[in-house]
């Protein structure tokens, strides 16, 4: 009975805006603070070379975070993604290095293994109503063992003797500067066209449209950001391929979660599963599909992480599941489900990746690195709760 308006009153306010605005600004503020700190402590942090490396590291963490978001939204979780990434990267390495498969075929087979494994896990969780935490914990252990079996607990390079292949290119290929700029221009133009079309469409049916200035400003800022990223990358070797992969995955998941019935259903299941069932949402199917999509993203992450390490070794993928979940949570995702966005997860991943990169640059001891990451995670969530998530 709280927020009803009398029918005569116009609709001046939506829900409390100031609190949400502050909350949305804390993450960027935190990120900028971290960057300033590192830039002061180590001038090399903002060097083009380091920023380029940071982008590749970000690509690995953030791609996985965006995938994990898909199962966090409907209120599930996945602890197996780190071990899964190691395993799938390992399978591709072994096929290439030991069995001389062409890289595209090896990657494609490994990707399908990932899809099958996660589809199976999702099916098992849904059909038997077992908590995802338990099943994926089992998955984590089993995948880890399978991974070490596959690579015989040795080191398997992603490419034979110093050559180049699609696999190694994932983290070593850069777009030539002019191509990068052209791509940026194309993306900005596409964003502008989409914004204008959606405005016209909404106007034509008489729906509420934000003011033109607001819409223009949003597109303008997005365009500036894209351009800035490309210009910084071009200072070094160009836009890394890994970053393009991240952008593609993030764009797909963003559209899926925000603009498709499937996405609505993810939020509906996480928010109130019983109500979702009664509303006719195919809850089981949706969760299985979410896990299946996650499987393909785990494979892609595994390829990038393995390529970045240069070879498949027993430590690839270690603790990546926790980084991915932490990134989502820092980005405002609820572990109970029903709340979270791709943009938030990307921000969270950027904070985690920046921390790790900066501390490595400063030669911080591994012990301290763990402690700092843990404290930042707890702090970020505490801030979020404090700032009016209730």
């Amino acid at each position, binding site marked *: *009975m*709280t*927020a*009803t*308006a*009398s*029918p005569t*009153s116009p*609709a*001046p*306010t*939506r*829900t*409390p805006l100031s609190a949400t605005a502050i909350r949305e600004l804390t993450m960027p503020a935190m990120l900028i603070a971290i960057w300033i700190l590192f830039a002061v402590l180590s001038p090399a942090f903002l060097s083009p070379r380091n920023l380029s490396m940071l982008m590749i590291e970000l690509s690995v963490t953030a791609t996985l975070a965006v995938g994990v978001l898909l199962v966090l939204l409907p209120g599930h979780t996945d602890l197996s993604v780190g071990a899964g990434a190691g395993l799938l990267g390992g399978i591709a390495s072994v096929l290439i290095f030991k069995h001389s498969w062409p890289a595209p075929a090896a990657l494609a087979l490994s990707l399908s293994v990932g899809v099958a494994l996660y589809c199976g896990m999702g099916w098992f969780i849904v059909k038997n109503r077992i908590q995802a935490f338990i099943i994926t914990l089992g998955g984590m252990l089993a995948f880890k063992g399978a991974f070490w079996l596959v690579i015989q607990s040795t080191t398997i390079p992603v490419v034979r003797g110093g050559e180049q292949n699609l696999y190694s290119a994932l983290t070593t290929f850069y777009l030539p500067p002019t191509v990068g700029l052209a791509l940026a221009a194309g993306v900005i133009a596409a964003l502008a066209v989409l914004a204008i079309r*959606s405005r016209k*469409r*909404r106007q*034509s*049916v*008489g*729906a*509420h449209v934000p003011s033109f200035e607001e819409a223009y400003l949003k597109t303008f800022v997005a365009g500036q950001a894209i351009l800035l990223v490309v210009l910084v990358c071009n200072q070094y070797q160009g836009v890394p391929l890994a970053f393009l992969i991240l952008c593609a995955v993030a764009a797909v998941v963003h*559209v899926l979660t925000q*603009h*498709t*019935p499937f996405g*609505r259903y993810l*939020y*509906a299941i996480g*928010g*109130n599963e*019983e*109500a*979702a*069932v*009664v*509303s*006719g*949402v*195919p809850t089981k199917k949706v969760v299985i599909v979410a896990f299946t999509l996650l499987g393909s993203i785990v494979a892609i992450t595994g390829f990038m992480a393995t390529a970045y390490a240069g070879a498949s070794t027993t430590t690839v993928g270690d603790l990546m599941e926790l980084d991915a979940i932490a990134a989502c949570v820092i980005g405002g995702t609820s572990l109970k489900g*029903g*709340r979270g966005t791709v943009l938030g997860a990307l921000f969270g991943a950027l904070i985690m990746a920046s921390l790790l990169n900066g501390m490595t640059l400063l030669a911080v001891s591994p012990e301290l690195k763990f402690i700092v990451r843990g404290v930042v995670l707890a702090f970020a969530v505490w801030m979020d709760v404090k700032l009016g998530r209730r």
Partner: protein
Amino acid sequence: MNPATSAPVLEARKLTKCFPGVIALNEVTFDLRPGEIHALCGENGAGKSTLIKTLSGIHPFGSYEGEIRVNGQPAQFTTLKDAEAAGLAVIYQELALVEEMSVAENIFLGNEPRRGPWIDWDASYAQAARLLAQFQIQIDPDVKVRDLGVGQKQLVEIVKALGKKSRILILDEPTAALAESEVEILLRILRDLRASGVACIYISHKLGEVKAIADRITVLRDGSSISTFDTASVEIPDIIRHMVGREIKELFPRDRNTPVGDTLLSVRNLEVAPDSSSPSRLRDVSFDVRAGEVLGIGGLMGAGRSELLLHLFGAWGERRAGEVQLAATADPNPDPQDSIQRGLVMVTDDRKRFGLHLDQPIGFNLSLSSLAPVTHLGLVDEARETQVNQKLFDALRVKAPGLDVPVGGLSGGNQQKVVIGKALMTQPRIVFLDEPTRGIDVGAKLEVYQLINRLTAEGKAVVLVSSELPELMGMSDRIVMLHEGQVGGTFLPEEFNQESLLAAAMGRSKPSAPTNP
């Protein structure tokens, strides 16, 4: 003591409480005297819940203007806990019991009898049993709350509040989920409490009950206009007039002139169990539902009314025997998604649990079941979706600033409109309404009834479950009374009267009622 002269135990002076864009309470003054039952009535959105939340510290001191006094002293509650310490206990519509704990554990939760640092379990159970016996409630304190019916839970909740020795009791719609017999128990308990000097604020939409039990009645309208009456000096129509600010003549405006068409749903000898290892809850149930009619389904709590609807909709139970035909084709193994596609939709009785996504905006909720028609090439066309939502939002006259307001902040009646709107957007041919007017006010009830008339006029069929017999008799074209999972009797309008319906619900009717072992 004489309530009319003694100083108030709880007093609100010129309370004003604003939410963004809305003034929920505007200089409301209210007082509660010791040893009285003071009813609080008003339409949904009138500000009753806001008043209660302000009085009990949920809206903390500082978030409102005006003054609250307890026993003549100014009170500044910042949490519910503060209010409880001052002797207030609030029993909400949404129950606050821990399902996995026993009745005794719940009664003493946060207040456990101790022996040294340890909980004295023996004392807990003994005291719980004594409390329950004192109020003549037949519930075993050992039983898990999960295994109780809604009505029994409500009684446990009340006993829990009394276990805290509260002197001021606030009950928000305590009888909304209770069966007739349980209401009796509750009213008796309240009278006993009154005799012992406990003061009680009683919020209810059931005006008959209010008239029967309250000493004074306060009617709140639009958060500002407030009038208090001595119960003896006011009649129900006056109360209604004050609530809505206009006179409502017809309480149940069923239009029985709609032509009845084809059979849309046919149920034969249905037998259903909760799961494969439990005994059947529904047995030998048969009935037809035809286009253009309202089939009423009645029965006592636990008779299987909701279960029957939920099963036919595909959200409950395992079918052991029987045949169901939906739109002239067999419907052996329904699930909600199929049912909706085949034109059968359900509005459940527990709207917060099964009906709504409270954190999500109104628009999200309205279109959740009907995304396919607004989806183009796999993408939701948000412009068209908004258009469709807005149309329904306007047609149902949902009182809210706009489509992007979270449903959780709406009043009960407006939430119910959203649930019904979601169901109607699926373009159904049969609509199941399970207690569609529970906990909503007179004006909103009338709108629901008019909606039912409109649906049947369009050739749709409505199946209406209600525990209020007047509503059932007023709105149905035919009534099936259930008794312990079986059909206790079927009635046509000329046979409608409270006694025979109740007799059928209790398994004591003549026509076609199977005997009970």
